[in-house]
């Protein structure tokens, strides 16, 4: 059971990571002058959309969190709307935090906001897919030893990795190297993306490594 689930997790994660690589390569075939650094904003949009579509699809197909009871259509719609609102709020929250970290308030709002959207895609969207709009569950998962399945474990790792990646990505900004990737927010968004991909790959391995110690309480 556990092995099979782990394999599914691995497949899903590799698919996500692969899709990000594809977003960097494929659009160049259709769009003139596309490159991750040159037309960074376009890439940010494409990457966010692809990752979110893929995540939602995977969530629907694999159903990592078995819904406890069948819900009515109106219930589903309200859940969906709630999810949308949560996602939007998390974008705003990330935007605010980035500005608090020192991003310019008025100039390059688009860049900052798209970076916030990317971060939300890597973090909040996954939470929403897995846990639904349930703040209590979120707090449980992100407190220590709160994970109840390998999916939640993987969620913990990828989320932390993406945020850490974004955090580390800010380091080269003050250097005076004058490289194209030092422009705001390229280094940060690349850092977050690499962090996310690293998280996706690390998560199954880490779970496999520590499978003896991981005992999940049943709900």
């Amino acid at each position, binding site marked *: 059971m556990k092995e099979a689930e782990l394999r599914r997790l691995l497949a899903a994660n590799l698919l996500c990571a692969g899709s990000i690589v594809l977003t960097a390569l494929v659009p160049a075939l259709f769009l003139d002058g596309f490159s991750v650094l040159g037309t960074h904003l376009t890439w940010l949009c494409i990457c966010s959309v692809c990752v979110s579509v893929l995540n939602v699809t995977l969530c629907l197909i694999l159903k990592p969190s078995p819904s406890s009871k069948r819900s009515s259509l109106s219930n589903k719609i309200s859940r969906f709307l709630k999810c949308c609102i949560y996602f939007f709020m998390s974008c705003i929250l990330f935007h605010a935090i980035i500005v608090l*970290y*020192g991003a310019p308030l008025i100039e390059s709002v688009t860049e900052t906001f798209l970076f916030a959207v990317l971060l939300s895609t890597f973090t909040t969207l996954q939470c929403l897919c897995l846990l639904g709009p349930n703040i209590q569950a979120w707090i449980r998962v992100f407190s220590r030893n709160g994970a109840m399945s390998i999916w939640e474990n993987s969620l913990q790792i990828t989320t932390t990795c993406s945020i850490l990646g974004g*955090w580390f990505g*800010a380091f080269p900004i*003050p*250097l*005076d190297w004058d490289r194209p990737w030092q422009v705001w927010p390229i280094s940060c968004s690349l850092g977050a993306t690499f962090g996310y991909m690293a998280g996706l790959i690390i998560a199954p391995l880490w779970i496999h490594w520590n499978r003896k110690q991981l005992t999940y309480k049943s709900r």
Partner: protein
Amino acid sequence: MRLRLRSGALAAGCLLAEALGVALFLRGFFPLPVRSLPRGEARAQPPAEPAPPGPGIASNWTKIPPPLFRKVVIVLIDALRDDFVFGSKGKQFMPYTTQVIEKGTSYSFIAEAKPPTVTMPRIKALMTGSIPGFIDVVVNLNSPALMSDNLIWQAKAAGKRIIFYGDDTWVKLFPKHFVEYDGTTSFFVSDFTEVDDNVTRHLDRVLKREDWDLLILHYLGLDHIGHMTGPNSPLVGPKLREMDNVLKKIHISLLSKEGEASLPSLLVVCGDHGMSETGSHGGSSEDEVHTPLLFISSAFEKRSGPLTQLELVQQTDLASTLAVGLGLPISRNNVGNIILPVVGSKTMREQLRFLHMNGFQLSTLLQENTPAYEKDLGYEQFKIAEKSHGNWIKLYLEGNNSEILLNLGKKVLKQYLEALRTLSSSLSKQVAQYDMYSMMVGTVIVMEVLLLLFLSVPKALSSRAEFEVPLSPPLFSLLFYLMCLMLCAVHVIVCTSAESLCYFCSMSWLTAVGVMMLISALMCGILSAVGKILENSRLPLKNPGASSSSWSEVDVLILAGTIGHVLSLGASSFIEEEHQTWYFLINTLCLALCQELCRNHFLLKECDLQLGTTMKQNFDSIGEASECKNIDVQAASNSKLGKAASSAEFVKGSDKWISLASPWIILICCRLLRSLNQTGVQWAHRPDFGHWLTRGITEARFVYVFVLGIVFTGTKDLLKSQVISADSSVKSTGLWEVYSGLVLLSALLFRPHNLPVLVFCLLIQTMMTKYIWRPLKFDAAQITIMHYWFGQAFFYFQGNSNGIATVDVSAGFVGLESYVEIPAIFLTAFATYAGPLLWAIHLLCYLSSEVSRNSAAVGHGCFCYALMRSIPVAIYIVLVTGLRYHLFIWSVFSPKLLYEGMHVFITAAICLFFTAMDQNHSQKVQG
């Protein structure tokens, strides 16, 4: 015999030793430039023309060549950037000067100033032709008379009459050199007009007179405009036009007199340094180092076409050129080259003579400063050029006057120029000569202190926070004596074999032996500490609990942040933008605290029962805390807090939400503060609130509001301390009084637009204490480190940076009628380090109020504070030693080193204060 030492005392002692080490290192790193002999002593005769080879013929031209110009007027415009004259601004606002540059009889150059681009070192460079050492910046304010050989002194000795109007730095540098002078002070930075009118008002009178040879004018207005409003302000244009009119007046007056006399006159226009995009100066950006240099004289050829590429010369070149122009010997410390076009109208023989004099002086300077001067490429080139010069003179004296002579002369000229360039560059390099031995001794002390502090971490942070220092174990005393002997032997060997001058060797023997004993004592301390640790590790571990306790996120962040910051000191960009590092760290710290608070509060809800006990403890501690210190800045709401604690409403009530929101409020405060002063280099041109605040009358109103508010709080505290005077609270009252006093003092010293920094500082401290540290119950070490981080961030919030230019010297004049050295230094240091100081004192207040919870809190705090300061200093010293030939060593790393050194001295004082408080406390506990 054993000495019991509290950890605070240990830390203070260590820091004192470290301060000594840093002082030694600084003295070695910034050697006072010992160049040529002082002027007047053994004045060498000017070199004769090189003797032609072969017997018989000898040149009889041994005297100094006669002056080329009858009168010289130097117009120095402070902070005149090259594009103010040669760029679009010049074309627009300086029509006369532009016309002279493009069509008149003039030569224009871009003169490159060496950093530090501050007025006094630049004046020295212009007049002596040498590059003043970096340490000159530090004594910039208190400029003593220039002792080394210089142009003004030479001119006076030659009987020239010099008149000076302008910046009174000149009057201090050259006392009694001017027959007439009127100094204006650069102290009133907001004065744009009077300061220049005071110079110009003398012009009409002086230009009519004939009783002077050298007129120097130093205009300060442009610099003031730059400091206050930046280079793009609308005020710059009219000021440039005013300068243009001054130049026109002088030039026309000089031309009108030309007919009467035989020799032409010379007008020199230059800037001492440029101006960055924000209007400040001191660094090494292109805007700051590039200044125009204009020679205008009817002796020059008329320029026909418009200006093409401008030639880049060194600022130091002016001294030798002027010396030749005035018929004076070139000053001995000069490293500049003669600017050849200026003397280009003279005959070949004279030109060669000038270059030979310049080269002779440079090679003499090289001989005096380098033992192996003969191997220097420049010296060899000069010798070759001198030989061909001799040959040329032989041909010349033989009466050969053909084309060949001219061509040969041109060849010699080229050889000379090449030699001069090489000589100059190798001499300029020598300015950065390090006294490695002193540096090493300083580094050893600092590193030993750091090691000792590291090794004593477990003991110092134990609950007792005491050491038992064995004073006379026989083994270590033997080792101690052996080490002393060995070090003294090394000292003797190094000092006797050293070729260059060494500060540590020049100290008295007793001092040197004392330092050696200190080093060996520290070494023995380290060894004994290592021995004890090994001994302990052999024993079975008694307390596995301590090691198994896992690290929280905040701990990881604190450790990573400290290490990351220290490592970032290795890159010049990170030093320039160090404020970004600290802002980044405290932001992350706030978010981590927020997460901790969330966990604390929400998990509380989930498992009320389990955490009920901790909650209870929490209340108890708060109750104790508020009891033991009746007086507090936040005393106003103490009653509310007490009520909340008693009725167990604390966590569920509104305080919980305030507590959760406080990290965010702090984050917002920090974001506002960070845009108050754009510091650093890369983003310094961004608009900041500070400018907005200084613009209108808002400024004045802000001052009143903030000062009144702070005065009100202070009085309230003092009154409270009078009303409730319980025995235990006397000390904390005193502490809070000190704290409020310091707050008031910094309010007085800060620039008006920086007062929000102070207000937010108080706000953040209050919120941190009340809503974050109390509920989360961090230990003293963690709180100390967080305080240190915030202190560092506030250092930059104030608008400081790691460059010299941002030191606000005007703070040193508050309440003083004139410059008094000691108070001015004290006030400036206080105003600069107000952020870290206020946080440190607040830490002391907080920790001593926490004494009831942890009796060793103050000792722990002191120890951690010392450790936090020692790590960056020690690592930075090693880094700087390694990077001493880095391109940015003078512009980036050296100022940072000065800042770090100063910070160590201040931290040592703080730690002494901590220890004194701690001692009091321990006495009270015993008594």
